[in-house]
């Protein structure tokens, strides 16, 4: 295939951003049109990519490889496999919805330009197969997000945006140094002394001391743990999510947090299998703490948006649990759950945004009985919330079930404690739903308008995806699984461990 599809997916939003930046700011409609064309065009390309993706092939597909900086062995290498495919699709799908849905109250031009740069950054991070290219895109996501929170956020936006930037840049400081250390160690340990940032070549290095690799792994993990965010590095998240404009929250929760978990899978597990296994108990424990702590804190929130933000801490804990269970079920569940969380939390933030647009408050105590004036909004909210809880038949269940199953095989007690998170999720979300939507509406609540057709059009694809993945996840899992088993095989080969065997159908003595 000669058409550089992946390069096009990354560059189309950039071109869109450049065009938007060059249009005079008084031509609002043109700007909006260009922004939508660029993001929808990217989504179309991503769908095309998914259709042409070869099922059953666990390796990287659609690989483009061009030398970029010869001195450092950096190449523009992009590729997609089952782990990244649906994250790319999710990103490309969420952006047009986030751009179409919520209203922008001022300066649409800069807003759209930053959003498109952000989209390019996210897509580039998911597609990069060169660690430096990954780092560049990973860094590139921070700046636009900063401006979106700081420029279009709510009252406390300046504090939240600075906190976000400082935390995440702090993480990437460790990432770059660890990355360079790995690259130079690879150079001295490889047969041809080649300086390269190629992910596949770096993963093949042998002979670097495990104690060194553990430190380097910790450097990578620090950056990704801030992004995920893993307890106790999560404190930037509630502020950033709450103060960000709706579209910012959608992208932050839906896509940006996945950069952390994706990074742990793609780089943590793949490059440092032994170190990852050695440190898994630490990460699993932090994940379980995050699950329960996030859920408990979410339960006591007074602000609806903050509640959803804390639920993210809990849900991302589940993903980490699946990733560091070191079983194919757990990892597949983790990858699937990344997509699920993007869909359901993205949708929840859109809905909270719609409520705020109408009521100008997010305080749960000031809302109530919204089911009466806005039945459609309530219905959609119900579906999305149940998917977030993990109700069977909706997408959240499939992912969480696989994760708990996979974790139970290798780390039984962590799985047991994590299960309480499922119950707690039901507690805080159902309770919140009850307080916001049930009862008799009073005051302004009684006159709230229901969803407009435009808003329904934005929510429809998300609800369809939520139900589809819950009822029939097979096509997705069929594409994820080969890559996941290939990664697990790599991990087990490199660490000389054996995958856990499950006694299927044999009678116990």
């Amino acid at each position, binding site marked *: 295939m000669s058409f550089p599809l992946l390069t096009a997916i990354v560059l189309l939003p950039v071109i869109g951003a450049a065009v938007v930046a060059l249009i005079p700011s008084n031509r609002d409609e043109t700007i909006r049109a260009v922004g939508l064309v660029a993001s929808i065009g990217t989504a179309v390309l991503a769908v095309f990519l998914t259709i042409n993706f070869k099922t059953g092939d666990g390796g990287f597909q659609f690989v483009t490889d061009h030398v970029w900086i010869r001195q*450092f062995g950096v190449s523009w290498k992009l590729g997609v496999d089952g782990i990244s495919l649906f994250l790319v699709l999710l990103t490309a799908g969420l952006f047009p919805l986030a751009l179409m849905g919520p209203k922008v109250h001022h*300066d649409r031009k800069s807003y759209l330009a930053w959003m498109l740069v952000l989209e390019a950054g996210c897509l580039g991070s998911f597609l990069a197969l060169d660690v430096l290219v990954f780092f*560049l895109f990973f860094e590139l996501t921070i700046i636009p997000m900063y401006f979106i929170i700081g*420029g279009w956020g709510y009252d406390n936006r300046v504090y939240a945006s600075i906190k976000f930037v400082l935390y995440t840049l*702090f993480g990437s*400081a460790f990432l*770059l*140094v660890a990355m360079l250390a790995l690259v130079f160690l690879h150079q001295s340990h490889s047969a041809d002394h080649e300086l390269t940032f190629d992910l596949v070549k770096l993963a093949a290095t042998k002979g670097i001391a495990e104690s060194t690799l553990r430190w380097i792994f910790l450097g990578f993990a620090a950056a990704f743990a801030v992004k995920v965010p893993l307890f106790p590095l999560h404190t930037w998240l509630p502020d950033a999510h709450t103060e960000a404009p709706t579209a910012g929250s959608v992208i932050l929760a839906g896509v940006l947090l996945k950069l952390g978990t994706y990074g742990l899978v793609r780089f943590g597990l793949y490059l440092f299998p032994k170190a990852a296994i050695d440190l898994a108990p630490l990460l699993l424990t932090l994940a379980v703490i995050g699950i329960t702590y996030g859920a408990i804190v979410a339960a006591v929130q007074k602000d609806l948006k903050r509640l959803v933000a804390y639920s993210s801490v809990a849900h991302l804990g589940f993903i980490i649990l699946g990733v560091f269970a070191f079983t194919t079920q757990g990892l597949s569940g983790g990858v699937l759950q990344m997509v699920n969380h993007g869909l359901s939390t993205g949708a929840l933030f859109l809905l909270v945004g719609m409520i705020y647009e109408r009521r100008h408050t997010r305080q749960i105590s000031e809302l109530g009985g919204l089911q009466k004036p806005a039945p459609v909004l309530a219905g959609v909210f119900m579906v999305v919330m149940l998917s977030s809880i993990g109700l069977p038949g909706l997408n959240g269940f499939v992912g969480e079930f696989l994760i708990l199953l996979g974790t139970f095989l290798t780390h039984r007690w962590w799985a047991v404690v994590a299960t309480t998170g499922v119950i707690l999720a039901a507690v805080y979300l159902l309770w919140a739903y009850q307080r916001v939507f049930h009862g008799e509406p009073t005051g302004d609540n009684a006159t709230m308008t229901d969803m407009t057709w435009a808003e329904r059009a934005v929510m429809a694809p998300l609800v369809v995806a939520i139900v589809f993945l819950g009822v029939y996840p097979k096509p997705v899992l069929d594409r994820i699984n080969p890559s996941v088993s290939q990664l697990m095989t790599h991990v087990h080969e490199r660490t000389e461990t054996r995958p856990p065997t499950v006694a299927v159908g044999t009678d116990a003595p």
Partner: protein
Amino acid sequence: MIGHLLAQVAPSDLPPLVLPKVAYSAILPEIIVVVGALLVLAGSSLARRKGPAGIWALLTVLISMLAGASSYRLWTRITDHGPFHAVADAVVVDGFSIFIFFVILTAVILAALVADPYLRRENLDGPEFYVLMMLCASGGMLMAAANDLIVLFLGLEILSISLYVLAGFHSRRAESREAAMKYFVLGAFSSALFLYGVALVYGATGSTQLPEIAAFVANNVVVNNGVLLAGLVLLLVGLGFKVAAVPFHTWTPDVYQGAPSPVTGFMAAAAKAAGFAGLLRVFFSTFTLLRLDWQPLVWVLAVLTLVVGSVLALVQTDIKRMLAYSSISHAGYVLIGLQAGSSNGVAGSLFYLFTYTFMVLGSFAIITLIGRKGDGNHDLDAYRGLSTRRPALALAFTVFLLAQTGVPFTTGLWAKFYVISAAVEAHSYALALIAMLAAVVSAFFYLRVVVLMYTRDEGESDAQALPRIRVPVTVGAALVVTVGFTILVGILPSSLMTFARHATLFL
């Protein structure tokens, strides 16, 4: 003939004074700049009436371009035949010196473009400014080409004295005079320390010529080398002052703030490049074998410079002062390249200096415009809402600030990446990490200005009452060049990296 006369008066047991053969072609770039400057000065005093507006800036740009062209000829000569010494081994012509020539000449051209409308705005127009700038550049070039500590000192003094005058050039502003005075007092002091260092090194090794010093260090095992090390430390102090390394930075904020804005930009780019040329030449190239002695010192210096520079920039409310501290922290990154003590490190430092020249001169071009008549409007509040008044200026300044932060796909990222990779390669993990964390701190104050520019003006500020800022053609050209360079090289940095790498080949 002079030699003959001297031989007659001198006692006969002394060897006759031999005057060196001067290979003019080897020092042509320096000659073009010096002679050009003097011709401009002479021409302007002989001319009957004032020349057309902008003539001096134009001449400066042309002279610098001519010097650049002759530097390029030397570069091709070096790549074909290797580096060589000239003028009785007083100067060395190698890739390193030519690279620094390019940095300094670029700084002169950009500063001249920015200074021309500035000088007319402030009623300071005349050839003197440009003459001083060119003399300063020739001093810097001499420092880059010096193969002898005495020549290095000569270059340093030519550079410094011109800069003292330039700093006080806006003589009607008290701040400008104050800046010149402070710079002069502290600068003279540091020159004295440097000279004392030269004396000590001479005392310990018996020569001021860099290759001979290197040979002495290589061939002799000195058990008590206290004198040599003391000399080394003094050289480090003297040059550290010029590059504004902490703790020799105290003059920087005051001088950067008080000096005319185009001068500040020029100072940050050219003086820094020249100072680092001296540092790299003396420490990396001459005292390579003593690297275990000086590397810890440079390590401490780099850490202090990075941390103090970025932390103190946080609390500034004056943009020029803020960029003064930021330039200190940038010097810290360049020091990382020196600390690595490898040719990759030096290449990283050179790359850093080259890209920083564009970033900082672009920034000061904008600061010059926003400073308005009187060059006093430098409060951060002057930038509030700039995007609504002058969107293009705000965008350009955003590019420079983001590049200095080290955002991907700008030159700033590659500069940091280059020096930090050199540090990691040399196993200075702690230094690399500290540098990255300093970058996080510095992100805070750069981004603050960007946000300020994109904050909507509430309507009652003074800025709206003032007339709209005009962007003169020359400044516009300088901005296009600097923004274009910062982004294009940010996307395709490979060729500049090769250039920097080649420049360190024979060091």
